[in-house]
C-alpha cells in the first residue's frame, strides 16, 4: 500500500525496503529531570496564580468561594455565590485569566519558535516588529470599521498583517542563510517605525470612540476581556500551540545551521515556511485581543534555556507554559498594585523586560567581541 509506486527503479540496487517503526528515543537523564521538575512546577504555579487572580482585585472573592463557584458551574458540588460575586467571577475575572493564559502561551511559544528559526536568541515578535505589524492590521480593522468576518475580523486582519510583517522581516534580515544580530535589530527598528506611522495614520482618520479603542492596542492590556474575545482567538492560538511542538526536533537540528540541517534530512525551506506561519498565527492571536505586549517571548525562553538547556522538545511547550505563567502574574500585578487604578499590562512587561533585553544585548556583544 505504500511507496512502491513512488520509488525509482534504481533504488533497488542500493537499498532495501523495510517497514519503519515508530520508537521514541530515551531522554537524556539530568536535563530531562530538570525539564520535568520545571514543567510540574510551572503548571502548579499557573493553577495557583490563576485561582489567586480570579479572587483578588477591587472586589475580593475568597479562594474557597472561587473553588466552590467553579465546581458549582461544572456540576461537581460546591455552591453558587451572590449575584455580584458570580458576575465579577464569571463575566470579568475568569475570561481575563483565560485570556492571559492564551496570550501568554502564544507569546512565549512564538518567541521560542522565532529564535529557533532565526538561530538568534534576540529574535522576538515584539522586538523585531511583528507585534507592531499585527497591531497595524487590528487598528486598521477598527479605524476603518471593517466587519467582514464578524467577531473574528480583528483577529483575521491582525493575522494577515502579522504574516506580511514576518515575511518582510525574514526577507530583509537574512543574508546567505544567516541573520546578523545588527541586521535583525535594525530591521526591527525600521518595521516598528513604519508600523507606528501606519497606526498614527489610522488614528488620524478615526473618530473619538475608535481612538479610545485604538489607544488600548498601543499600551497592551487585558482589561477588555470577555468570553466572545476568548472565543475569537481560541482557534488561532490553539492551532499554533498544538502545531508548534511538532517542529521541536527539527528546530534542534536547525541550530547547526541551514545546510547541516539539510544534510541531516530536514527540508529546511518547508520547515521555515511552516514555522513562519505558526509564529504569525500565535502573534496575531495575542495582539488581536491584548495589543502589543513585548518581551514575554524574549524573557521566558531565555530563562528556561538557562534552566533546562536549549533542547526544543522541552523549550517549545515549556515556554508556552512559562509565558502563560508570566502573563497571569503580570496581569494580576497590573490590576492590583495601584488599586483602584490599573496599569496597562504592556507597560509593565516592557518595564521589566527592557532591562533584561539590555543585559542580553551586552552579553551577546561580549561573546561575539563586538557587532562587526
Amino acid at each position, binding site marked *: 500500500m505504500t*511507496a512502491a509506486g513512488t520509488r525509482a527503479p*534504481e533504488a533497488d540496487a542500493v537499498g*532495501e525496503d523495510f517497514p*519503519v517503526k515508530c520508537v521514541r528515543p530515551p531522554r*537524556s537523564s539530568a536535563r530531562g529531570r530538570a525539564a520535568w521538575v520545571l514543567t510540574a512546577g510551572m503548571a502548579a504555579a499557573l493553577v495557583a496564580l490563576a485561582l489567586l487572580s480570579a479572587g483578588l482585585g477591587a472586589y475580593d472573592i475568597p479562594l474557597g468561594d472561587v473553588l466552590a463557584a467553579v465546581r458549582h458551574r461544572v456540576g461537581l458540588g460546591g455552591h453558587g455565590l451572590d449575584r455580584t460575586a458570580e458576575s465579577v467571577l464569571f463575566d470579568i475575572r475568569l475570561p481575563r485569566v483565560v485570556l492571559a493564559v492564551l496570550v501568554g502561551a502564544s507569546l512565549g511559544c512564538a518567541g521560542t519558535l522565532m529564535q529557533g528559526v532565526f538561530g538568534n536568541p534576540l529574535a522576538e515578535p515584539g522586538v523585531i516588529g511583528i507585534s507592531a505589524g499585527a497591531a497595524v492590521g487590528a487598528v486598521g480593522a477598527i479605524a476603518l470599521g471593517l466587519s467582514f468576518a464578524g467577531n473574528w475580523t480583528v483577529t483575521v486582519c491582525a493575522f494577515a498583517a502579522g504574516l506580511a510583517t514576518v515575511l518582510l522581516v525574514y526577507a530583509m534580515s537574512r543574508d546567505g542563510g544567516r541573520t546578523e544580530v545588527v541586521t535583525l535589530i535594525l530591521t526591527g527598528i525600521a518595521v516598528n517605525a513604519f508600523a507606528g506611522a501606519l497606526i498614527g495614520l489610522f488614528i488620524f482618520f478615526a473618530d473619538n470612540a475608535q481612538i479610545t479603542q485604538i489607544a488600548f492596542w498601543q499600551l497592551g492590556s487585558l482589561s477588555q476581556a470577555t468570553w466572545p474575545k476568548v472565543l475569537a482567538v481560541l482557534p488561532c492560538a490553539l492551532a499554533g500551540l498544538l502545531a508548534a511542538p511538532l517542529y521541536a526536533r527539527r528546530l534542534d537540528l536547525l*541550530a547547526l545551521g541551514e*545546510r547541516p540541517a539539510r544534510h541531516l534530512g530536514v*527540508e529546511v525551506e518547508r520547515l521555515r515556511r511552516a514555522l513562519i506561519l505558526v509564529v504569525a498565527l500565535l502573534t496575531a492571536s495575542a495582539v488581536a485581543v491584548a495589543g502589543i505586549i513585548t518581551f514575554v517571548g524574549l524573557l521566558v525562553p531565555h530563562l528556561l534555556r538557562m534552566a533546562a538547556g536549549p533542547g526544543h522538545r522541552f523549550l517549545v511547550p515549556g515556554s508556552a507554559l512559562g509565558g502563560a505563567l508570566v502573563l497571569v502574574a503580570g496581569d494580576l500585578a497590573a490590576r492590583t498594585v495601584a488599586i483602584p487604578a490599573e496599569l496597562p499590562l504592556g507597560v509593565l512587561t516592557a518595564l521589566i523586560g527592557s532591562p533584561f533585553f539590555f543585559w542580553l544585548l551586552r552579553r551577546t556583544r561580549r561573546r561575539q567581541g563586538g557587532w562587526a
Partner: protein
Amino acid sequence: MRAQCVRCVTRAECRLRAWTAGLVRGVPFPRPGAPRARRRVVPVPVAPGAVLAEARGVRVRLGGREVLAGVDVTVRAGEVLALVGPNGAGKSTLLAALAGDADRTGGEVRIAGRPVGAWSAPELALRRAVLPQSASLAFPFPVAEVVRMGRAPWAGTEREERDDAEVAAALAATEVSAMADRPFSALSGGERARVALARVLAQRAPLLLLDEPTAALDLRHQELVLRLCRERAAAGDAVVVVLHDLGLAAAYADRVAVLAQGRLAADGPPAEVLRDELLSEVYRHPVEVLPHPAGGAPLVVPVRGLAAMRKTEAGPSTAGAIKAAALPRR
C-alpha cells in the same frame, strides 16, 4: 500495516500524518519520490569499488565567476579520495556539489545511482554525511546532544536502537568523550572541529564528505582524523576529504584529485599524482617530492629560501601551463 511517515519526529506527528494521509488515500502525492512516501529506503552495504557518488562535467558559477568548469569525479566504496589544490581552486564547491548543495549550472551529480536531486532530504541524509568547513551552533547544546543530532536521519528506523552505541563510539573515536556534558560553545576551535566530526561519524552514512577536517587540529589529531577516514574506508564506506596538507594526502589517501582554477589537474594514486612539476605549476610555488627514507612514501616539501625566490621569479606562468601539466587527464 501502516508504516510511518518519513519525516515524523514525534509519535504524535506520526499519528497525525498517518491520519491525514488516510483522509486522502488514493490521491497520488504530487511529487514522485517526495518525502511523503510512507516507507523509507534504507541503504544496504555495497561491495568495495561500487560507485557511491559521481560528478560528470559539473559546472558551478558563484558571484559571476566560474568556480567549477566541468569536473568529473568518481567516488567508490572502500576508498579515501583526497581533494587538494590551492585556495579558490573549487575544492569546497566540488564537495558541496557532491553533497547536493551547490546550484549547478551544468553537469550531473549522482549519489548511490540516482541523480542527487531525485533523493528527498531524509533519504539523502541516510546516504551521505557532510562535515562543513566551520562548525557553528546557535544555542549552547551539550556536546553529547550535538553528536546525537547526527543520528536524526535514523529516527523511526530499526537502526534507531543503535543510537546510544553510535554516539558513544563517535565520541570515543574523536577523543571527546570526556567533554560529553560540556556545552559546545565552551569548547576551543579544535575541540569543536572534533565534535563536529563526531556528529558526522555518528550519522553512519556510507558516503562521507569532509571539508578540511584537519584545519583546526594539532598534529596528533590530524593523524587521528585521517586514521578514522581509513577505518571507515576499510569498513566499506567512501570518504572524500578536502586537505591542504599534501603530506597527509600522500600518506592516507587511496586517490588524490588535484584541482586548479575550477578544473581537475590530476586524479590518481598519490604516487602518480604528487609530482614536482605538477604541484609546482598548480601551487605556483616550487615543490619537491622526495621518497621517505624509510618506506619510500612520497614526502612533499615546498622549496624554501633563496632557491624558491629565484624559481618563482623565473617561474611558471598560469593557466596554459596548468593545462599542459594536467594532460593527459584521467
